């Protein structure tokens, strides 16, 4: 599924940041969820039209423990610097779950650089008892997917790496309702698409409307029969709506799908 994605490293903010990249066209930067960088079939599909740059944020994967970044706003600044270091002045930005919160901060901090924002199952607003998935790969799959039986097995995660990531997430994530962030969202400038799977077992899709109420230019789309990991479960549906939104922004609500059966 990651065919064609090359690996690279970029220096930013004193971190050596790993990324995977493929494709040509307008830039699409991706910030991953609390489980770390994992390419999905949707990355490959999107790379047919966009230059997809999927970063591994400092503190995840094989990178050193990140004890320096204090909060999500600071993490967003680091990731903006990483994009800049790759020569990406203006780009589309996609954030998944935990990465959705970082993407929101980046969109607030540098709106002139973010062409459009896509939030996949964003975790910037969470139920009070929500916790990132943990445990065995099977436990994780049950939390992430509506249909784990249809997914390839998740790779086993090194326990030390998992603990390192979890500690980092706990430290920087902020509260389930973050008044500092939410107070700023009415000023978020980039057009924003929020996606929730109808079977998300981690963050109830019923809270999706809150983003729409907080962000002035926001669209909410439900991906039917997907769990939290939408891009992995319904990659074609995910890619179609994301790329249509990135191409047309608000106008993506106007159908251009032909209905002629026989001309």
């Amino acid at each position, binding site marked *: 599924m990651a065919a064609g994605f090359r690996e690279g490293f970029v220096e930013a903010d004193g971190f050596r940041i790993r990324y995977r990249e493929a494709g040509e066209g307008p830039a699409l930067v991706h910030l991953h969820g609390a489980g770390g960088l994992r390419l999905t079939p949707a990355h490959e599909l999107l790379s047919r039209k966009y230059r997809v740059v999927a970063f591994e944020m400092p503190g995840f994967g094989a990178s050193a423990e990140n004890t320096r970044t204090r909060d999500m706003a600071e993490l967003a600044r680091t990731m903006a610097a990483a994009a800049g270091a790759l020569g990406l002045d203006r780009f589309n930005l996609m954030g998944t779950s935990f990465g959705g919160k970082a993407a929101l901060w980046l969109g607030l901090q540098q709106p002139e650089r973010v062409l459009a924002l896509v939030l996949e199952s964003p975790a910037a607003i969470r139920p009070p008892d929500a916790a990132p998935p943990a445990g065995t790969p099977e436990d994780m799959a049950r939390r992430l997917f509506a249909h784990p039986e249809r997914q390839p097995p998740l790779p086993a995660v090194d326990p030390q790496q998992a603990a390192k990531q979890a500690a980092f997430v706990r430290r920087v994530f902020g509260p389930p309702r973050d008044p500092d962030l939410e107070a700023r969202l009415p000023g978020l400038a980039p057009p924003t698409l929020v*996606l929730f799977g*109808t079977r998300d077992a981690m963050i109830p899709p*019923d809270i*999706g*409307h809150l983003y*729409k*109420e907080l962000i002035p230019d926001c*669209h*909410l*789309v*439900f*991906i*039917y*029969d997907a769990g939290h990991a939408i891009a992995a479960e*319904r990659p074609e*549906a*995910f890619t*179609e*709506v994301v790329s249509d939104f990135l191409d047309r922004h608000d106008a*993506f*609500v*106007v*159908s251009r*799908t032909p209905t002629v059966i026989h001309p």
Partner: protein
Amino acid sequence: MQVSYFETGRYYAPSNLPRQWPMPAGAYDRAAGLRAFRGMVERSRYVEELGFDWVSVSEHHYSPRILTPSLPIAAAYIAQHVHTIKIALLGPIVPQSNPVLLAEEMAMLDTMTEGRLIVGMLRGTTNEMLTYDLNPEESRERTDEGMELILRAWKEPQPFGWQGRHFHYRTVSVWPKPLQQPLPPLYALGTSREASDFAARNHIGLGVSFGPFEAMGKVTGYYKGECARWGWQPEPHQIIYRANILIAETDEKAQQALAQYPRQAVFPLKDEVAAALLELDQRNVAGEGRRPANVNRALPINFCGGPDEIVAQLKEARERIGCGVVDLSFQTPGSDDPDALMDALELFGTKVLPHIRDI
């Protein structure tokens, strides 16, 4: 136990009709159609007067057997002529509908009836898949997705898009919303594992139909098990049993009428069409086995007898199926007289209804 009267818009043909489905439209008699729709009002008013709890309608097409292809129109028409009885849509055929339009229409109806709407969502009988060229292999998935979209359309406070497998909308924002809060009483209709799974997961009721008590009890047992898995238990009124009833003054007269009840479908499909549908439309009962859909077979009579016997049978159904609601289709085999149906309703309303309230 609550009782629903299943109103089919009974069409009494003035001449012999061809034995086939679809029925040629040219065979339609306009005067008979007019009488059928007037009869809907007359019977609905009568069952309200007798104390029935609901009057139900169900979507069917291209045949005189059930004359309500558009449920919202039928329900609105009936609702205009009754006052207290609940109006039950049991139900719209979801897979061949626009689910957003259904959500809009049902919300309108709930408001117009001042909160007396009951909603069941139906996959539909196999022949109906020919009505609007629905691929039978997709009907199950389209039903599940359509039902979920209807619920979402009613719940969401903000405009949203829907990226489905079979349905695709970029802008949904339903006005009006249903009057009843949080939602009208809802049911998934069907005996399949999928219908029960959906109902259990979404905390809604289940409607089973026409099967023997034992098989239907197996379905509702499975449904209750799934509800428990999702952390809740349905109330008796959340289980509907739709059934055919043949009631007469005595058991003997009921048995005599039963002998005239057809064994095969009155309006069958052509053999090759039926075979093609059967190949593509496999059904299950609570997840057990694969069984062919009901094509070209008459639906059985589930309750038959004089009033006392009917009371006993309803008690048995309540016990074995757990149904708190029966939705009854009154059969009058061998009689083309509309008064025979009114007589059956009166007999049930006066001799049965008072004795089943506490079961």
